[in-house]
Every structure is written in C-alpha cells, then in structure tokens.
C-alpha cells in the first residue's frame, strides 16, 4: 500500500511538470515567450562497496531535464517564469523526482514588486554552508551541498527604499525535504520514511509560514537581517515504531538571522549567524570567514582564490530534539582556480574538517564549456579520517565521483 501511495505520489509532480512544459511550450510558440532548457546525463560512481543492505553498488546513472519559459510584457511590469525540472534515476526511485523549481507571476510596480507562485530565493554570503538561507526546502537527494532547492509556494512583496530593500513573505505550503531511498547511497543504515513525517503543528504541511528580510549596502558593506516563523526546513528524526526506518520531524521554529559581507580589495570577509527557537533549547549558530583572490597567477590571466570559513552550531546533538548537523565545530579550507578562458574553465577544491576529531569531507569540482551548448562537470565527494562518532561515519563508504554532461538549448 505504501509503495502504491509512493508511486502515485511520485507521478503527480511529473504530470504537473509535463503539463507545465506543454503549456509553456505551446504558449511560447504563439506569444513570444523566451524558451530555453537543458538535458543532462549523469553518472555517479561509487568505488567502495555499500555499507548497508539494499544499496546500489557501482554506478548510478540518471537523466536530468529542465525547461525554462519566460515571458514579460513590453513595459516589463508583468513577468511569468516557469522552470519545470525532473530527474530520472536508473537506481534510486526516491531520486527519480520532478519539481516546478520556479513557477510564478511577478508584477513590478513603482513602489512594490509582487510575486506569487513557486519561487526560489537565496539569502546569505558564505560558501561552505548556507546557514541563513531558509525560504526554499533543500532537495536532499540531489547533492550533499544543500544547494539544490525545491520551488516554494509563496507570495512575496518587495519594496526598495532609500534605506534598503524590504521583503515580506507569506509561505502557504510546506515542502518536505527529499532523502535517498533504499537503493540510494549517501544515507544512514535506516532510510528516511518521507511518507510518514511528523509535524509539530496540527496544520502539518499546510501551516502558513511567514518571513521578512531587510538588506542594504553601505560602501564596502552588504548587510541582511531576517526573521522567519514556521515549519523548520531541516527535520529532526525519530525511529519508526518497527525500528526499520526514520521518521522526519518538522518543528515550528522562530529564527532571526544576520548576514554581512565586507568587500575590500581582493578580500571578502563574510559572516552569517542565526538564533533559533523551537528545537530543544534556543540555540545560535555561526558561519564566517574570508576569501582572498590572487589575480593573474598565470600568463593567461587565471585567478586563484583561497577560502577559509569557520562553523559553529550550538544545537542539541540529539536528532529527535534538533536536526543533526555536521557543522557543529568545523573549519572549511578551500581553493578556487578560474582560468578566465572562453570556456569558463574552473576548479574548486576544499575540505570541511571537524575541529575536534579531524573527520573531513573533501570536495573537488571541475567544469568547463565544450563548444557553445555543452557544459561538462566533474565532482568528487570524499570522506577522510572519519571518527566513528562523527556524523560523517555513516557515509564514509559513499565516496563518489560524478560526471555530468549538459546540453543547453
């Protein structure tokens, strides 16, 4: 029964997306829409044997489809954006999924900009953790970096004033985080049962969340202050009654956040902080550091940037009380090499290192364009020196190399 439910559920979004694509394409043909999109092929290679029963061994292949349909009126006051997206994964049913990444109407008025629909919003300044970014749910089956997001139902009002930008959000629907299924790698011994979430609030996923943000820049400084009240995007976890899976727990939280960046010469100084109430004791968390770029390190004019960021997080370590995090007391060290060539070739390498036990998550990314329409990416995700008690321990056999080739239209 549960698998039938899951199948039906998994069909709803693809059908919606398909409808959006057909609608978008047909409208586009007739009324001057800007139509784009991409098709990607991905192979994720796991050199190590899986740690848990049911997990795929070897190569995980998938296809990624994205449409991009945009329309705006001649006076640019009215805009419609549709970004349907889908992944078809050959291995993990839970990773085969579809979403409307963006699908909204925007009105740009003299005093007020209004957006309604599924929106994508990013808050923050740091690189290795996105602490204050809270509007969109993370599409957790996509990658471990938390940068893939699900479209968030929202009404957003934005007003630009002489003393900054004010945004008010009404968020009338909650999106659950996605997690790997039984066949998937990069999970713990128990899978997360996304069919059996626990909500603190009786309205469950229909709880209406609210948020507000002020942001401004003053000389070299960029500042942001925000508040959020509603369902936590990060879940905690409790074991299911039969002990065979984990149930995600979504608390109601209140969060205040600040983000700041100082840009001076080749230096970028960055900091993000939150205070959150609603998951055990009220706690604070901080991410901050710097980025320094050495320009023209090669004769052809490549740049090399060095990144250092520190993470601390005061949340309860019991996952049934507060969502688990691997950024409790960690340092990120990284380097970024931009070739500044016509193919936008770049390399990124880094590691998040636990200060107390030395457990490290290493990432390497390389990318470049081939010709005009094809983009190639290689990503490596490795764990090094993992302490058995560290949050990384469950995924230490899931080192992965991902190859992705994307054809853009």
């Amino acid at each position, binding site marked *: 029964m549960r698998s039938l439910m899951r199948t039906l559920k998994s069909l709803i979004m693809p059908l919606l997306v398909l409808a959006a694509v057909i609608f978008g394409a047909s409208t586009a043909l007739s009324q001057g829409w800007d139509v784009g999109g991409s098709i990607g092929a991905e192979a994720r290679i796991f050199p190590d044997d899986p740690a848990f029963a049911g997990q795929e061994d070897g190569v995980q292949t998938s296809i990624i489809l994205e449409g991009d349909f945009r329309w705006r009126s001649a006076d640019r006051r009215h805009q419609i954006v549709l970004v349907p997206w889908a992944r078809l994964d050959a291995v993990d049913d839970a990773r085969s999924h579809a979403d409307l990444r963006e699908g909204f109407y925007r009105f740009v008025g003299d005093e007020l900009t209004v957006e309604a629909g599924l929106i994508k919003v990013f808050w923050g300044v740091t690189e290795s953790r996105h602490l204050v970014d809270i509007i969109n749910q993370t599409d957790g089956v996509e990658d471990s970096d938390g940068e893939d997001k699900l479209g968030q139902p929202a009404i957003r009002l934005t007003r630009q004033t002489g003393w900054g930008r004010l945004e008010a959000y009404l968020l009338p629907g909650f999106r659950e985080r996605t997690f790997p299924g039984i066949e998937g790698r990069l999970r713990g011994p128990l899978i997360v049962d996304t069919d059996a979430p626990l909500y603190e609030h009786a309205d469950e996923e229909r709880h209406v969340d609210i948020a507000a943000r002020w942001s401004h820049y003053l000389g070299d400084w960029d500042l942001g202050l925000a508040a959020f009240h509603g369902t936590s995007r990060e879940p905690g976890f409790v074991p299911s009654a039969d002990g065979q899976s984990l149930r995600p727990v979504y608390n109601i939280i209140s969060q205040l956040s600040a983000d700041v960046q100082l*840009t001076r010469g080749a230096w970028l100084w960055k900091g993000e902080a939150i205070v959150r109430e609603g998951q055990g004791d009220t706690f604070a968390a901080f991410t901050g550091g710097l980025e320094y770029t050495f320009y023209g390190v090669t004769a052809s004019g490549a740049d090399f940037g060095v990144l250092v960021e520190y993470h601390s997080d005061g949340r309860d370590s019991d996952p049934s009380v507060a969502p688990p995090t691997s950024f409790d007391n960690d340092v990120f060290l990284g380097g970024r090499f931009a070739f500044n060539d016509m193919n936008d070739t770049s390399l990124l390498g880094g590691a998040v290192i636990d200060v107390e036990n030395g457990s490290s998550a290493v990432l390497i990314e390389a990318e470049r364009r081939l010709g005009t329409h094809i983009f190639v990416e290689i990503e490596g995700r490795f764990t090094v020196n993992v302490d058995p008690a560290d949050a990384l321990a469950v995924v230490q056999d899931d080192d992965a190399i991902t190859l992705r080739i994307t054809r853009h239209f």
Partner: protein
Amino acid sequence: MKTKATNPLSKSLLAMASLLALAGPAPAFAQEAELPAWVDTDSERRGYEIAIRSDNSDNGFGDSRVEATMTLRNAAGQETSRQLSFQTLERADNTVGDKSVVVFHTPADVEGTALLSHAHILEPDDQWLYLPALARVRRISSANKSGPFVGSEFAFEDFTAVELNKYEHNYLTTEAITVAGETLPTDVVERFPRYENSGYSRQVSYIDQTIHQVRRIEFFDRRGDHLKTLDLGDYREYGDGIWRAHRLVMTNHQTGKSTDLVYGDFEFGVGLTDNDFVRGVLERQY
C-alpha cells in the same frame, strides 16, 4: 558549493558595462577646466585638452539600453560568441561614476547571469553578480585590473579605466589613420595610467579631428612592448551630438587572438532610475 561561484564572467560583465563609456559620445567643445597638477609642458596641456574634449562628451545621455554581441576569436580562427544587454544610468554629477546592469543571454548555460556596477572615479567600483542557478546575488571584488575575462582580449581596466583623470595625457602628433575602411585625420595622444595595478605602461589614443571620438587605442605592456590595438568603428549619432561606436575590435598582437564587440541600436531616455540599479533588480533581468 558551485565552482562557478566567482564566475570569470563577472569581469567581462563589468567590462562590457563600461564599454559604453569607452565608446562614448563627443563634446561640442572642450570645457574650460583647471589644469591638473601633472601638466607641465605644452604637449601635456594640449594632450589633456584633446582628451577632455572627447571625454566631456560622456555627459548628457541620461539613460540607455542596448543589445550587443561579443565574438571571441583565437589564433586558429576558432570563434565563440556571447550575447549581452546593457542598461546604463548616467550620474548627474560627473565626479561620480555611472551605474550599469549587464545581462548575459548566451552561452545558454549562463543565461540570466547579470552584473550590477556602481562605478567610482577614484575608489574601486562596487559590483554585484547574480547567478541564476542558485538565485544568488554576490558582492564581488573589483580589485582585478589587468586580467583577461572569459578568454576575451579585453582586460578589466580597458573598460573601467576610461575616466579622464585616471591618466596623464601627452600630445604626440597628428596622423591620418584608417579604421574600418575609413581614413581620418586624428590627434595622437599618449596616456599613462595613474591608478594602481595597471597592466600597461602607456596607451596611445587616436582621436579624430571632426567628431572628436576615439578611433583607435594602442596598448603597451609593462615592458613597453605593443600588446594590443582597439579599433572603434561604425560611429553613429543619436540626437544632438551623442555618438556611439557600434563595432569595437580588440586585437592582441602577442597571441594573435581578437575580440569583436558589436552593438545594436542604442535606446536613450528609456526612463530608468536609481531603483533600477540596486542589487534586488538583478533577479528579474531576463
């Protein structure tokens, strides 16, 4: 984390924005201005006066919008192109730099990437880059000067360092040159960067004697060798004395590479205001 987070495009985007100024319009007459302290000789005074007559023409267009195509070509003749659009807001006071938004339309994988720039005369510019993949706006450094961007032959400073007072000027001679098939008498003025971190020891500009537009700039590297030549062609007049070059060709003599920048028709007076040049607008540019 995305590798693209400090996309090298950023430099080209900013650069493109400032090209509007480089291709800028001509003044009717040189304004009476107090001579800067570095002017000692008659040739420096004459060089400065020719430069200021050309530079003053930057003023008066208000705001503009234009589409452009940039074509990058390597020594083997291989080409790749980028389509961009620009919006520019001229500051009322010419001691403050212009504001601009540049949006990339191709290559397709960077569509919607947008750069906001608040140019300053003496201090570093303020720049924000929008990356659509993450819906993220980043404040980026403007410290780089001499680096190339996205394989083009334009350096960062070729676009940002177009303000008169960023150089010392010196009149050399009068010479007829041929640019894009057109032979013109020009005043030849050399200029020496006064700002830090320039990749050039000097530049030689050719300013035509009729409409006072820069028709050619030769760039000399730190060793004093001829590095690049920029030809500015297809000047068209918009309204009263507002001239724009529509075809810019930068050739690197040391690598054999070149970059063309071709503008479409400029729209002036589109009604843009300061509120169209804040970081919040970057996400709705395409």
